[in-house]
């Protein structure tokens, strides 16, 4: 499978997990993630992947089985989407609290109701504070590379945390892309076998998930939070090492024509490729648009974002989830907090919600945002009656 081949991204993600030599997959099918675990079950059934494939009755059980497998010392993988992620929700916190390096691919999809199988980020945004490292991918190649990087990040003794890789449902999962597959030898060299700190084994019994009294719970959570914050240098290190080994370099915060931009877009996921096209179009007309692609969402790459924001005047945070009663959508809230704490003054920072439940984001939408930003004044950032976000394309 080495080399470049045209493949549906879901199948490519499954083959990346195969290259990572996953030992346990416990999963439940859900659109638009199904092809990932379906292909993994084929690979296991055909003897092409030496792993236990655990079929379960729900996503709650899928993540529970992953917790058990990882606690027993297995390299563990699963994938889900939307309602499935929310059904896993309870166990997501247990995986991170127990410091188990599970890798989960979330094929991002809208949440019901109304029932919608299409793409946006409302699923991951509802699970964003579960203590996992979170990556977002712009294309299929990134998805494949992220699976391999994710295990090395997660299993690093300085980290030992689960990693969620977000890939946009349908927009990435069901698209056939040319994907470069590294050789098994190179992946093996990059990703050594998992050596757990503790395992559930009768020869040396330990207790995982013990009762945490009020006298110790705060210290446990402080240790976990510190591990998550301190994982960022390891993420950087692994991304750099990946670049050296495979020739494709990634950064937690990637910029495109951002240095001289009059209007800077910030977004996560595949929509960044749409925005890049829009930026090219606008640049072609002499309009200085630029883009910040946030690949690492947890831990939040504060310093890297501040470096990208400093000196910019107009920044549009483009999000694919509603604020759900907050003043702004999640990413805007964090970027405005970051700007405030970093003393970035005079920033016109606005929040745009776009492409919910699979609605297309068109180049004209970004032109509209660009023009909106150009004529925005600091006073426009004040609180409004009603929604504090601009929802692109809503019929009103």
């Amino acid at each position, binding site marked *: 499978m080495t080399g470049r081949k045209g493949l549906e991204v879901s199948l490519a993600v499954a083959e990346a997990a195969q290259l990572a030599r996953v030992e346990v997959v416990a999963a439940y099918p859900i659109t638009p993630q199904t092809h990932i675990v379906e292909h993994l079950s084929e690979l296991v059934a055909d003897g092409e992947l030496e792993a236990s494939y655990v079929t379960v009755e729900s996503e709650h059980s899928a993540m529970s089985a992953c917790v058990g497998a990882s606690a027993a010392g297995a390299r563990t993988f699963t994938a889900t989407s939307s309602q499935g992620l929310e059904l896993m929700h309870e166990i997501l916190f247990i995986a991170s609290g127990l410091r188990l390096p599970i890798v989960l691919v979330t094929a991002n999809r809208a949440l019901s109701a109304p029932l919608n199988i299409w793409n946006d980020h409302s699923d991951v945004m509802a699970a964003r504070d579960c203590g996992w490292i979170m990556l977002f991918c712009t294309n299929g190649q990134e998805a494949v590379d992220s699976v391999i990087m994710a295990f090395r990040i997660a299993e690093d003794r300085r980290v030992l945390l689960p990693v969620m890789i977000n890939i946009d449902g349908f927009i990435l999962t069901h698209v056939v892309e040319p994907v470069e597959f590294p050789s098994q030898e190179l992946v093996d060299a990059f990703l050594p076998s998992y050596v757990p700190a503790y395992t559930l084994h009768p020869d040396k019994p330990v207790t995982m998930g013990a009762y945490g009294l009020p006298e110790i719970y705060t*210290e446990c959570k402080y*240790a976990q939070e510190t591990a998550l914050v301190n994982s960022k240098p390891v993420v950087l290190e692994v991304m750099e090492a990946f670049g050296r080994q495979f020739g494709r370099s990634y950064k937690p915060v990637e910029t495109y024509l951002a240095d001289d931009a009059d209007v800077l877009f910030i977004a996560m996921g595949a929509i960044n490729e749409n925005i890049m096209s829009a930026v090219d179009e606008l640049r072609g007309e002499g309009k200085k648009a630029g883009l910040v692609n946030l690949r690492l969402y947890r831990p939040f790459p504060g310093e890297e974002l501040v470096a990208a924001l400093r000196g910019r005047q107009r920044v549009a945070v483009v999000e694919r989830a509603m604020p759900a009663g907050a003043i702004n959508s999640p990413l805007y809230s964090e970027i405005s907090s970051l700007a405030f704490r970093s003393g970035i003054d005079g920033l016109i920072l606005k929040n745009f919600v776009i492409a919910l439940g699979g609605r297309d984001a068109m180049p004209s939408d970004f032109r509209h945002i660009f023009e909106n930003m150009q004529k925005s004044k600091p006073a426009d950032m004040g609180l409004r009656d009603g929604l504090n976000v601009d929802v692109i394309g809503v019929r009103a």
Partner: protein
Amino acid sequence: MAKNVDEYKWYELNIGAVVDEPGSARQFKTGDWRTQRPAWDESRCIKCGVCWMFCPDCAIYQKPDGYFAADYDYCKGCGICSKECWPGAIRMVEEER
């Protein structure tokens, strides 16, 4: 554990707060929930052991003289022993601390 649970600094904990010493739950005394405690009137006790049998926490033991008593490290004051003691030898009294 080498020390009490409330003496650990956050950086002294095992990864994932794993407990790698078996049997450490023995150090956890659960009797501090109690608001009432059983008190025996040995003049009425016939040493039948019904209290010992019914105690849901195995917190009642038999003394060398054959009478029964509660281990207050674990007795939660539920009152089942008092309810079940048919000779009426166990009275629940207000816990004072």
